């Protein structure tokens, strides 16, 4: 039982080591290093042996020394096998090995004797594996987007694997793509349009949604249940179905290529979510406050502006951020309604840029960085509000 568990443990940890080193090798390749093989067999044997040695040495040596010794041995062998790699690569390998060793430090003979110990190990390593794998898979495209925007057309074609940025060059050359898209492609104007549309949508949506949500949350009226269920159904409704009729109507009314047209459509599509999220919050505000206000002869307008809004600032700001993000990211309607470059939003402008096969890809990526940054910034900064709102309302997408 103990030997079986030890072998299984060594097996799993060896695979974990392979993943760690492979990701490091990919990243190193992208910095221009010439590595042509993952050496999976060698890595596996090493990982397996290190894990076995860890278990058999046990507590005879202090954990820190054990980790350092094993890591150094590995680095020396690895450096011998794949030669001519710079020092920073080997330091990276050493740190990874140290991390790996400290992770397997907590397993010992006693632990391996326990029931289900292999399953616990598998679970532990799967979690680690998952964290690494998902961070890599998710962050890599964003990393690529950012780096590509700082490269030149020639450098990208000569070696698509070289992601290193030359910081020694002039700042002007480094940010050249950004200068170009602002100067020759009018990105400043597009940013302005996108901002006006998004902020406008937020204001109009809140103006309409707060009273409606208050009515749904507090007042009794005929058709209330119908209204609150239809909010949910409308929220599920496909946007693609609305496109053709709205296109024809907007064409006939002359609302295409106008900010007003976009504002109307975005407001209508975000209203259901906003009402749904707000009414949930309004219901949690104690009723006694309003009853006191009614005795003071406040009108409904007074109740909303003097009691409800000040009390629900967190919910309102989370709805506002959401609506902003939806409007900023929106693509389908801006594709359908805007065909004049003077009224483009950022998303539409980037799509228009890519339509021209001549457009260098670094311009496209610089545009992508510009459209992505504000959203990610808002998201990271206000994450707490947004996550609770997401689970409550779940943004359409």
């Amino acid at each position, binding site marked *: 039982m103990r030997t079986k568990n030890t072998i299984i443990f060594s097996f799993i940890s060896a695979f974990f080591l392979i993943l760690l080193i492979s990701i490091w090798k990919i990243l190193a390749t992208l910095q221009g290093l010439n590595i042509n093989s993952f050496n999976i067999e060698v890595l596996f044997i090493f990982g397996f042996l290190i894990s076995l040695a860890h278990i058999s040495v046990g507590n005879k040596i202090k954990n820190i020394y054990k980790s350092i010794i094993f890591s150094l041995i590995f680095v020396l062998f690895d450096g011998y096998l794949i030669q001519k790699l710079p020092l920073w690569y080997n330091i990276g390998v050493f740190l990874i090995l140290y991390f790996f060793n400290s992770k397997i430090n907590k397993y010992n003979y006693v632990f391996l004797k326990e029931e289900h110990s292999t399953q616990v190990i598998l679970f532990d390593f799967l979690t680690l594996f998952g964290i690494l794998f998902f961070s890599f898979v998710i962050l890599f495209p964003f990393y690529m987007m950012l780096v590509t925007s700082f490269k030149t057309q020639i450098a990208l074609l000569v070696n698509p694997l070289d992601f290193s940025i030359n910081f020694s060059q002039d700042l002007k050359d480094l940010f050249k793509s950004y200068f170009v898209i602002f100067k020759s492609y009018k990105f400043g104007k597009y940013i302005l349009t996108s901002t006006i549309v998004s902020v406008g949508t937020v204001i109009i949506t809140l103006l309409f949604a707060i009273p409606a949500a208050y009515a749904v949350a507090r007042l009794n009226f005929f058709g209330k249940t119908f209204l609150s269920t239809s909010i949910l159904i409308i929220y599920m409704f496909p946007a*693609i179905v609305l496109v053709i009729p709205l296109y*024809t109507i907007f064409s006939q009314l002359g609302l295409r290529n106008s900010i007003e047209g976009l504002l109307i459509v975005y407001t209508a599509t975000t209203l259901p979510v906003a009402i749904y999220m707000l009414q949930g919050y309004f219901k949690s505000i104690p009723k006694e406050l309003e009853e006191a206000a009614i005795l003071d002869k406040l009108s409904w307008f007074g109740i909303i502006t003097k009691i409800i809004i000040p009390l629900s600032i967190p919910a309102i700001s989370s709805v506002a951020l959401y609506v902003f993000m939806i409007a900023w990211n929106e693509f389908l309607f801006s594709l359908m309604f805007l065909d004049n470059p003077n009224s483009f939003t950022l998303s539409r402008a980037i799509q228009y840029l890519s339509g021209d096969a001549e457009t260098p890809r670094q311009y496209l990526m610089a545009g992508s960085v510009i459209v992505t940054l504000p959203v990610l910034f808002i*998201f990271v900064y206000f994450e707490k509000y947004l996550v609770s709102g997401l689970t409550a309302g779940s943004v359409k997408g």
Partner: protein
Amino acid sequence: MNDTLANTEKKTAYILTLPAVAIVFAIILFPIFANIWISFKEVELKDIRIPEPRAKKIVKSILEEPSKIKILYKLRNSSLLQEIRDVSFKDKFPKNFKIEELDPRCNFKNSTLKCKFGNWPAKYRENFNVVFETNDESEIDKKALKSTKPKLKGTSDNILLNTNFTLKNFKKVLFENEFLDLLLTTFYYTFFGTVGSIIFGILTAQMVNQKFYGRTFMRSVLLFPYVAPVVALAYTWELLLDPNSGTLNSLLLNYQIIETPINLLGQKYIELNILGFDFKLRLALTTVIMFEIWRYFPLAFLFILARLQAIPKELYEAADVDGASPFQKFFKITLPQITAVISILFMIRFIWNFNKFEDVFLLTGGASGTRTLPINVYQQGFAISDIGMGSAVSIVIVVLLLLFMFFYFKLLGKRVDEN
């Protein structure tokens, strides 16, 4: 007293909800009915512009006669297809103007020129001249003359409003549009995208639900693909997967995993040989599904994580006392607790994926076997400019969705009864 209070409450409620209801009705519910209407009509993109009578005003001075001025109106019917009936014309002039020669269709009263041009057929054009003289020999301000614009009015049929209906669009959608292929592609895309995102959602939620260093950071990173704009993500993926100079292909070539680059977004099929069985995989569709999963698993992750955090700790403690293994805990405690969330997620994501347009459009434009129903709406309506057909396809989407929801709820209802 109470009665009036209830009445004012009702009134207030209607006033408060009216603006929101009105705009949602106008932009969401009305178009749905309009869609049904249009889908039974033969309408093309060029038909939807309302024909207008137009006039371009050109002011010309006459040589050696400074007190006289000639005005040329270039009149035309903006439509190439439809006639305009009872065109009327109106333009204002300064008080001191006198008209020379009046066209029989017009009259000049109170410094206003009014004409009745009758009916203009499609493509109609006419150059209409008027000459004016001033009473008092004063100089003529040409700029002011140009700045007043003539007003034209006329009535014409709006092709969208007449009552000629046809079933032709639906016949074409169902029998001439490779409908089965379209449906199957949409189904693959929707189903595998949904299932994939839920599976990854469960894995990541289970992962983040454990304690480790950097957990909150991990949680926000996992949501990045969901909150970033589609346009940016789609083009980044396109660059990443490019067969000639894309990073992924270069990496795979560098590590000698493949010998020739694979066009992941442009190749319809790839032949695979697994365990001696040859089979064809729809490559571009698979890639698009991967993107779909990558972008939308965060939603599943969030929902499932919220549910996982609500599971009482006592359940796991009791299981530990009973000596349950981690896998037993997962399958016997965790999974039953999240089935409700998963079934809701499945429905939401299924519906949204079924209607997803942007992702496929930006990645492949519907080429190489990735043509889904929403892409077809766009292609019919705007690429082929057959608005009627596009509408018919979107009606088909709505009907299919309603069918799905009906059966899903029936199935779900049954299972709830059994429990």
